[in-house]
């Protein structure tokens, strides 16, 4: 989504005197629209924003506009032709199930500008940030502040466009929960970098002594190096040990074991604590799609597999294989058959017979 949005924008900005680039830009935006659920909100918003600030150049293409518009229309066909299905994800995470959707939207939207989210803690979902770091580097903070002030002061069309981008970027993410969500607001990322670069540029133009300027630049550069080294260390050393369950670590081993002993049990019930276990059971057990598709409407069970939430209680007779997350220890303790550990050595699943 981000790559094709940015590619579309760059091609558009270079297209004012080169019509083929304008066509290529529409193709890029069309592809972006079909890359991710959030893109269904983001791409139209971004296109509207581009149109608002650059309508003079766009309208100057006259009748030649028809072809790129047609291309964009073609790229909407997979969504329009499959409309109910394309809304499934949006409905499952959208804010409209909440009692107060407007309040949820506003607080979700604002949460993306939280300095703690941006610079200290990051997204709480383990896959979306490096543990112990924000979404941006600390050294970017002064540059972003400078950049924001310079952008606001410049008041040119381009700077207004970047500020509009900054304000629009969290909207797709704020339409869903949980927030702040680094992945759904990933179109934020380029604009923060652009603002930081603009800040660095405006700092270079400061009328202060060269020595002082160089000293400040050196301090920021050293801080940047330290931030980058910390990032690499946390990403390669800490992240695999602390966040492996967020990356579905242990599922492969668990399903391999379950499949091996499945014939001995009438029901196999698996906790959904680590998220959507049916996907992993289907994938790692190489379950025949032709057999699964007729049962696919119910995501809580298929074949002899059942999936449970916070706790499980036996309600039917017969032998059941129960897969619980590490922290779920029933009383009295059941007969444990296997413990599944992640790559870090931490316990992830307890498999018992009940």
């Amino acid at each position, binding site marked *: 989504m981000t790559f094709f949005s940015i590619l579309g924008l760059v091609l558009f900005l270079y297209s004012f005197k080169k019509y083929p680039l304008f066509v290529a830009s529409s193709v890029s935006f069309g592809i972006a629209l079909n890359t991710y659920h959030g893109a269904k909100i983001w791409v139209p918003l971004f296109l509207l924003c581009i149109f608002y600030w650059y309508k003079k150049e766009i309208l100057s293409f006259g009748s030649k506009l028809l072809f790129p518009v047609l291309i964009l229309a073609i790229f909407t066909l997979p969504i329009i032709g499959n409309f109910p299905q394309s809304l499934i994800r949006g409905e499952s995470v959208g804010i409209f199930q909440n009692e107060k959707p407007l309040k949820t939207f506003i*607080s979700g939207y604002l949460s993306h500008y939280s*300095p*703690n989210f941006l610079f200290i803690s990051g997204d709480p979902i383990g896959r979306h940030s490096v543990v112990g770091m924000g979404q941006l580097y600390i050294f970017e903070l002064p540059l972003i502040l400078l950049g924001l002030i310079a952008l606001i002061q410049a008041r040119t069309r381009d700077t207004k466009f970047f500020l509009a981008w900054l304000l629009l970027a969290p909207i797709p993410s704020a339409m869903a929960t949980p927030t702040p969500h680094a992945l759904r607001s990933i179109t934020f990322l380029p604009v923060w970098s652009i603002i930081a670069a603009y800040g660095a540029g405006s700092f270079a133009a400061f009328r202060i002594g060269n020595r002082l300027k160089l000293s400040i630049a050196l301090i920021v550069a050293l801080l940047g190096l330290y931030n980058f080294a910390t990032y690499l*260390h946390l990403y390669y050393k800490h992240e695999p040990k602390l966040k492996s369950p967020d990356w579905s670590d242990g599922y492969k081993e668990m399903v391999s074991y379950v499949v091996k002993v499945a014939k001995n049990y009438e029901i196999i019930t698996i906790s959904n604590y680590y998220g959507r276990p049916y996907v992993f059971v289907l994938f790692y057990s190489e379950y025949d799609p032709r057999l699964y598709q007729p049962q696919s409407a119910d995501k809580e069970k298929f074949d002899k597999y059942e999936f449970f939430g916070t706790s499980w209680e036996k309600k039917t007779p017969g032998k059941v294989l129960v897969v619980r997350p590490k922290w779920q220890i029933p009383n009295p303790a059941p007969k444990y058959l296997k413990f599944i550990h992640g790559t870090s050595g931490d316990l992830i699943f307890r498999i018992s017979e009940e």
Partner: protein
Amino acid sequence: MIKLFLILIFSIIIISKTGWDLPICNIETATLAITPRIFAEQTIDGQNQPVLVTRILHNKAGIFAQEAGRCYFNTLDPNFIASSTTLLGLIFWLYFVYRILIGRIWHLTAIFLLLPVLPFFNLASLIVVYTNKLFAIIGLIFLLVKSK
């Protein structure tokens, strides 16, 4: 006269706004976090890592600075400001920040930047809430005076 009336109405709304929540975060919580975090991080790093690398990446000063930063930024969280001044108040507050930076009103900028430090040292945490309200009202005045 209308502007004065608007300032009065919005000021009453901003001042009477309740329901804000500032997490407990101060010098004690930051100090308390150091030992367990260093222990956890050194355990993750393991025995094979050179001590110097561990010391550079996980040290008391760094952890304390991060915790202090967290406390400081809590008071600048847009949701906290909106909850203490209303959503409209947040917009006025942002306009206040914009005006003091653009107008280079350094004494107000210094107050604005130093105030979030007070709750960190357990000094009159409530003052942050009420100065946010005050900043929002000043922002509103800036806005209305500008549109003269």
